């Protein structure tokens, strides 16, 4: 049946209206992004734990009981981990606190030297252009007053998150399927099958990616901690944890973790032997990761060009820090899959 001009114009209007609605949702989400952090963390945890609940449910127990058992087990495991790691972490934090002025002093001296060299060699820069703001920042860091307010803010945020996250995780694990079903029930018949497939594809993309990245980052962090501890590198726990956390972000993350770690060792002891130990451990962990861990846990990798991955990660970091960087790639893939599915389901088969 031939479409009339009015029908064509109406379809165009529908597409523009849909775009406008999506854009409005994005703007609203961006303006309340600070409030979204605990919910994003909860979603990340749900994506990570959901397969375990599914597996337990397959064993014949009810979903609610499976979620309760998983919660109790998680609390137990976290408690044991805390007990095992806290003494080590505490002594490293105390050492760091004690030595912080010394490290900042060393950074200042080093930066002063670099700034002097720059200002001397670049004639256009009047003396103090670079040095003054740098001194001000370092002095505020050394006095420690600038961070008191932000520390209170972080503690407040953490307290709120500790209440919100477990609740959201519990109910999403227990009733997530029902929520999904209820949401999709509102899709008109004409687009129902297309949207159902799309929903699952997005869910699969995000959950596979997040699960893979978290397991990979945990393994890298653990291996790095063990390696650095065995080679008696100072701050082995903190440095290993930094390598693990930064590993969540593809391409840029491992390099950033390495840069931070090696700079820290140079500031701490300045010893070439320590730096070589760190580089050696890092290289071994990377090889193990690339050959064994990553192929196992990141089996269903996303097909996006490296340059695109770097661009979307940078954008993710700009919008929502490290969480934004973790979610940037799966969100980009979801958008890609949305366009592909909509094109196939709605336009190619003519049922838009």
């Amino acid at each position, binding site marked *: 049946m031939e479409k009339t001009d009015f029908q064509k114009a109406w379809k165009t209007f529908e597409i523009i209206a849909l775009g406008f609605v999506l854009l409005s949702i994005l703007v609203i989400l961006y303006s309340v992004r600070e409030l979204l952090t605990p919910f994003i963390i909860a979603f990340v945890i749900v994506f990570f734990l959901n397969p375990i609940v599914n597996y337990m449910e397959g064993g014949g127990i009810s979903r609610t009981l499976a979620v309760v058992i998983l919660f109790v087990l998680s609390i137990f495991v976290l408690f044991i981990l805390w007990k095992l790691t806290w003494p080590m972490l505490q002594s490293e934090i105390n050492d760091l606190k004690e030595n912080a002025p010394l490290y900042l002093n060393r950074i200042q001296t080093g930066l002063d030297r670099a700034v002097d060299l720059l200002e001397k060699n670049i004639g256009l820069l009047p003396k103090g252009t670079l040095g003054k703001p740098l001194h001000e920042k370092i002095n505020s860091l050394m006095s420690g007053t600038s961070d008191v307010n932000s520390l209170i803010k972080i503690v407040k945020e953490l307290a709120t998150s500790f209440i919100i996250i477990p609740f959201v995780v519990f109910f999403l694990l227990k009733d997530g399927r029902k929520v999904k079903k209820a949401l999709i029930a509102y899709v008109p018949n004409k687009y129902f099958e297309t949207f159902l497939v799309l929903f699952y594809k997005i869910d699969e993309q995000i959950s596979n990616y997040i699960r893979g990245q978290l397991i990979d980052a945990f393994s890298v962090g653990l291996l790095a901690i063990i390696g650095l501890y065995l080679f008696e590198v100072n701050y082995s726990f903190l440095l290993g944890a930094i390598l693990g956390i930064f590993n969540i972000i593809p391409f840029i993350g491992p390099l950033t973790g390495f840069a931070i770690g090696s700079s820290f060792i140079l500031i701490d002891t300045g010893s070439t032997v320590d730096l070589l130990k760190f580089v050696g451990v890092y290289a071994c962990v990377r090889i193990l990761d690339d050959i064994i861990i990553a192929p196992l846990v990141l089996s269903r990798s996303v097909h996006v060009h490296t340059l695109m991955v770097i661009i979307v990660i940078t954008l993710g970091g700009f919008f929502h820090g490290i969480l934004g960087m973790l979610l940037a790639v799966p969100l980009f893939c979801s958008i890609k899959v949305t366009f592909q599915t909509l094109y196939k389901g709605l336009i190619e088969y003519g*049922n838009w």
Partner: protein
Amino acid sequence: MSEKGLFHLLVQKIRGGEGDIIPVLRTIPIFEGLGFNDLKKIELIVHKRNFMPEEIIFYERQPGTGMYIIKKGVIKLTKTINEERVKIGELRDGEFFGEMSLLDEYPRSAEATAVEKTEALGIFRPDLFGLIESNPKLGYKILLRLSKRLASRLRETTERKLREMG
């Protein structure tokens, strides 16, 4: 009220009633002989859909996503043959169609349209695969029944072809 009645009510309350979906599922060969608990799990992946008269359920050639069971109403199946839309069948309450799409994305061989106001239950591949993954025992039962249905269809087609060839 008798003691049996009270106990029955209590059991009903704990395990939940049959509702209006499970009795329909029981009549479908793919779920034939499955217990209440299994049917309850399948009920979780069933989508209730309502169609108005002349509303298209799916188009011919559109990639298949799943099957529909007619709870109440009538649907017609049409196919384009020599550039003309030909009616190839009509289905009513309790009948189902599109079950092969539970296995693969092969394009639909016909177009399904509601003839009158129709209430249908949809079961779709992504949901079913998720159920199979989390409940392999139930998955095995469903896949076995689906395979039997596929085998019987294949047998019917082969016999018909042989008859046609004389």
